């Protein structure tokens, strides 16, 4: 079997440019002021996503990937570098970017269809059109029949699907997901991953997924960006050359295993750096008392 190709990135700026990239993240630097001094969460990170592409960003805890998510989504400001959508510079939440959050984010006071119709309501769509469109997306995520139910009556996985449908209903050019399945068990994750693949393939949705789960990243992505522990930089980009359309069955293939192994070897180094750093911090905190 052929060796799995990858691209090694130097620590420094590099644009993997496609002429028609729809999302360009260019040389982002984001620092925070903490009681212990200045913390660099994201250190000169660049990447780009082509239309219809599914890019996964993976890294150890504390690598700044959630910061990156918030920066691209426009929820954080005060950073260096630019985020461009279809060539236009973006600063702040943009209708072309849809965000799906890690935590439980359905509106508990609205039922499923009202949740999903939310962005359409905001956009001022008339009632019947709103509900027609919302129903389409409810069906897309596989929750038809549940339109009138309330989030409290649904399982965690179903609620995340509602959040997904809600974001998709706004038909964003780019879908930004921050560990959307973090609170779910492994099997639900795999099955929801299937759902996401299905939807993405059907809509040709450009997606950027932030995750710490290697299986998930390889299962869903066309390309995986591996980040270092903070200060977060791009360590490696791995092209995932697995056939499309895919299903969760792919996780049992050899090629899949090799991709996972390769990414893990990169990640393990960063993760153990993170662990050591964490331990020494806790030690110092204990000593201070």
């Amino acid at each position, binding site marked *: 079997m052929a060796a799995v190709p990858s691209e090694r990135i130097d620590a420094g700026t590099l644009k993997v440019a496609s002429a028609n990239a729809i999302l360009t993240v260019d040389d982002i630097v*984001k*620092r925070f*002021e903490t009681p212990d001094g*200045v913390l660099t969460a994201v250190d000169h990170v660049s990447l780009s996503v082509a239309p219809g592409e599914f890019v996964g960003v993976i890294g150890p805890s504390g690598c700044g990937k959630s910061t990156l998510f918030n920066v691209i989504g426009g929820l954080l400001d*005060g*950073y260096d570098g630019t985020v461009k959508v279809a060539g236009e510079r973006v600063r702040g939440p943009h209708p072309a970017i849809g965000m799906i959050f890690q935590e439980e984010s359905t509106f508990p006071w609205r039922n499923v269809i009202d949740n999903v119709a939310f962005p359409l309501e905001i956009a001022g769509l008339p009632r019947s059109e709103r509900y027609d469109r919302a129903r389409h997306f409810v069906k897309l995520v596989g929750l038809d029949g549940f339109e009138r139910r309330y989030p409290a009556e649904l399982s965690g996985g179903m609620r995340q699907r509602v959040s997904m449908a809600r974001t998709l209903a706004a038909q964003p050019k780019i879908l930004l997901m921050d560990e959307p399945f973090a609170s779910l068990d492994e099997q639900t994750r795999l099955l929801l991953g299937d759902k996401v693949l299905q939807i993405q393939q059907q809509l040709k949705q450009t997606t950027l997924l932030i995750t710490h789960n290697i299986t998930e990243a390889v299962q869903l992505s066309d390309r995986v960006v591996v980040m270092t522990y903070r200060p977060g930089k791009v360590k490696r980009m791995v092209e995932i050359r697995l056939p499309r359309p895919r299903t969760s069955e792919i996780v049992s293939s050899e090629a899949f295993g090799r991709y996972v192994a390769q990414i893990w070897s990169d990640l393990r180094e960063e993760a153990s750096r993170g662990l050591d750093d964490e331990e020494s911090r806790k030690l110092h905190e204990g000593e201070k008392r």
Partner: protein
Amino acid sequence: MAETGRLRLPAARPLGLPLRPVTALRIAIIVAVVVIWEAVSASGWLYRDVVPSLVAIGKALYATLSDPTFYFHLGTTAYEIGIAMVIGGLSGLAVGILLGGSKFMSRAYEAYLYYLGPCPKIIFFPIMIMWFGVGPGSKVAMGAISCFFPVALNVAGGMREIDKVLIRVGKSFRANTWQMVTKIYLPAMRHPVINGARLGLGVALIGTLLAETKLSNRGIGFLVIQAYSIFNMPQMYALLIILFVIAIGANTLIGRVGGLDDIKRS
């Protein structure tokens, strides 16, 4: 150069004044209230001296606090409330433990407490007078029934919140009832008990004082009504101020002692 963001909101920063903005605003509000009050008072706009000058109130305050008979009345009220809290509190505690500890008892009787709780207890006063006379007895009774309900309900709820495993530990060591109560239930229920006591104090205070305003010849409530009847407004304000300071202080004290937020109503 990258801008730096802040991870946390900064604590109130000095504006270049020697004061923090919060303190400055508080002072501004107080000053505004004082100015408006004095203006209304001086203008005579509200009839019959309803808004006396702060100076007059201050004088009345001083006069009251230096009057020995005031302390007699204060003592009477305090004594009434104290006994009311002991009676109401202890019986509330006992009933609460009983109801909270047994699902059966709770389903049989707790509803009565729950629905009687929000009734205004002052309406029972005529009965209390018949049973306990026109003296302190009826006032204590009012305070006690007022205090009983919040304590009982809070304790019952608190009992149910106790981690069941702690109760099993006690039973496994074969603790008797008294030991269970003092060594397990009460320590585990510290928060609900303190909260119940706070609420109980609040309503006992109200119950006793209202009873005093209605029918009494001693106590703070009596003094307030007396001031009303002779239309001594500065005196009434002075008494109310003293009363509120004591009530809020006692509430805060119980909270501090019990280690909770400063002032909670419910």
